[in-house]
């Protein structure tokens, strides 16, 4: 595969050279390509994800920035 080098800029940064796209050209065509929730198969995994990923609502020890100032 021929690698392409691209020049990228970002605020507060000098321009840098980075490796360009290494994926094959084309479009995803499957309805399931972007699906991620099936990665959590069991009920236990789903509950654990809710308590970590959505911790500010469902985690017992996570309160988010707002609750630290105003302890519940």
């Amino acid at each position, binding site marked *: 595969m021929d690698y392409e080098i691209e020049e990228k800029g970002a605020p507060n940064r000098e321009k840098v050279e980075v490796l360009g796209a290494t994926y094959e050209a084309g479009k995803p065509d499957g309805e399931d390509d*972007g699906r991620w929730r099936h990665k959590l198969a069991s009920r236990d995994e*789903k509950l654990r994800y809710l308590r970590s990923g959505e911790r500010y609502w469902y985690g017992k020890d996570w309160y988010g920035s707002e609750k630290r100032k105003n302890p519940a």
Partner: protein
Amino acid sequence: MAERKIKKSVDKASLDMMEKAARDGVTTAFDRAGEMSQCAIGAAGSCCKNCGMGPCRVLGVKGEEEAARGICGATAETIAARNFIRMVAGGAAAHSDHGRGVAELFLAAAKGKAPGYTIRDEQKLLQLALEWGVEIGERSNQEIAVDIGEIALAEFGKQEGEIRFLSRAPLKRQELWRREGVAPRGIDREIVEIMHRTHIGVDQDYHSLLKQGVRAAIGDGWGGSMIATELQDILFGTPAPVLGRVNLGVLKKDEVNLVIHGHEPLLSEVIVAVAQDPEMVSLAKAKGAKGINLSGICCTANEILMRHGVPLAGNFLQQELALVTGAVDAMVVDIQCIMQSLPDIAQCYHTKIITTSPKARIPGALHIEFDEHNALEGAKAIVRTAIENFPNRGNNIDIPKEQTDMVVGFSHETINYLLGGLFRASYRPLNDNIINGRIRGVAGVVGCNNPRTTHDSDHTSMVKELIKNDVLVIQTGCSAMAAAKLGLMTPEAAAKYAGEGLASVCETVGIPPVLHLGSCVDNSRILMAATAMVKDGGLGDDISDLPVAGAAPEWMSEKAISIGQYFVASGVFTVFGVTWPTLGSDEVTKHLFTDFEAAYGGIWAFEPDPIKAAHLMISHIDKKRKALGIDKARERVLYDMEMRRELESV
């Protein structure tokens, strides 16, 4: 007859179909808007027809007073405020009745009384169970769902206390709502109370009237709409990234075209499955078609796009134009934003218009009523009607070529996952990039089309201006479709249209600079995204502290007013375009545009020029950055860019 001066659309496919409509002798909303000028008194909110002594026209604008009071003594302020909150009531009722319909189907499915429907997203079911204190243990999903469905349904008729989803909001926001007395007691109750208060001779203080409007709107955004979104996710799946296409070019000449239009995806989910049934595909082939092509208009379309990648034929003002192609074999509609002209236009071609909701009948349409107990048979009858109509197509077919790719499916849950990954899902990268100035802020651009302005133009001009200035844009509804048609919802759009900072973040995460969050009830996803930003920290303690803004540049429906009002009530600066329905009262307008900020942290604004409106949003974002003390990072960024330009010019 008033002459229409504005350009009708910026979308070539739409313009081509308008020309074809003219050739075919078909009249569309664009023509009707040109022929009928707006009533200036009504547009300004100054016409009251709430009793048989009127209608009374009472303008409260300095130097333009028509009359000081209505027959009953109502002032211009009272009339403008009453009319405004009746719009909120209409919008909140539409969203919430949709939510109720979903809750009823959800409960029936949980009880095994709605064959074909099942729990597709157990994770979200568990989420609501945790939230509402429903026992999980070893219980089956159906058992849990029965409890969830009953609790959800009870939210509509609750008489006291607070609606449950308020507890999702930032703590400071919840306190503010309680302090201001606008925490909704029940979803329906606040809407009914608007109708009572606005009856002749009841509430005659515009402050108090507008406050009730706020209360009902919160019951929409954090109540009815949020229930619709959450339960639809459990039944049909929480959206995740999927590739879609948009514009009239998605219609196919050699396939049966069935267009799904409206807002409630209950039946359309089954139609999506039935259209892939080999028996139906064979029937289509037997009738001379190569297959069955589903596509959609308005928000039912957004729902099935977000979950299945079903292409969008277009937004609100393209519903008539889709028929003008001559290639639509059937258009099935459910509720909201469906033009009564469709059956008339269909007569000029061969299209069957099929209504499905007992709440939304249209003379001249074929009615196949949605029955949750027998959805499969209803869906089959609809697909069969489209197939059997395929041989009736005439030769007058012209399908525009235009169609654009889009990546959609950005629910709050998916954004959280994409930014942080499975083991540390988080909005942290977004907040960090806002703090370091790569992303200046976030703007929600939503709403309808309105033929009183150039179709799609205000949406696309505003969105381009925002992303050019490093503002990440999140969208729903017909507004999202306008941006998608221009190609703004592909990852490649970041390099082409976004400012350097936003582009660098989009490229790193692999997301477009404009994210599609779904249908208009899915504006509740925007509320959740904003709350997640607050809770993740570093950007204040409330939504009103965030560098965010909202807009509906081409709004037309009462739903848009309700959405805008719950955004404002949640602390968001929200600017509307086209027209503003309280301009007949300087005092009421000032109250909404200025005084609301002290009470709710969010205010309304009106600016019909989309670029100027985008600049208002950017100034508000910058004001919030300054208040948070993160304006310095951004100033340094701008200084560096300037320096770089100077260096390059040497």
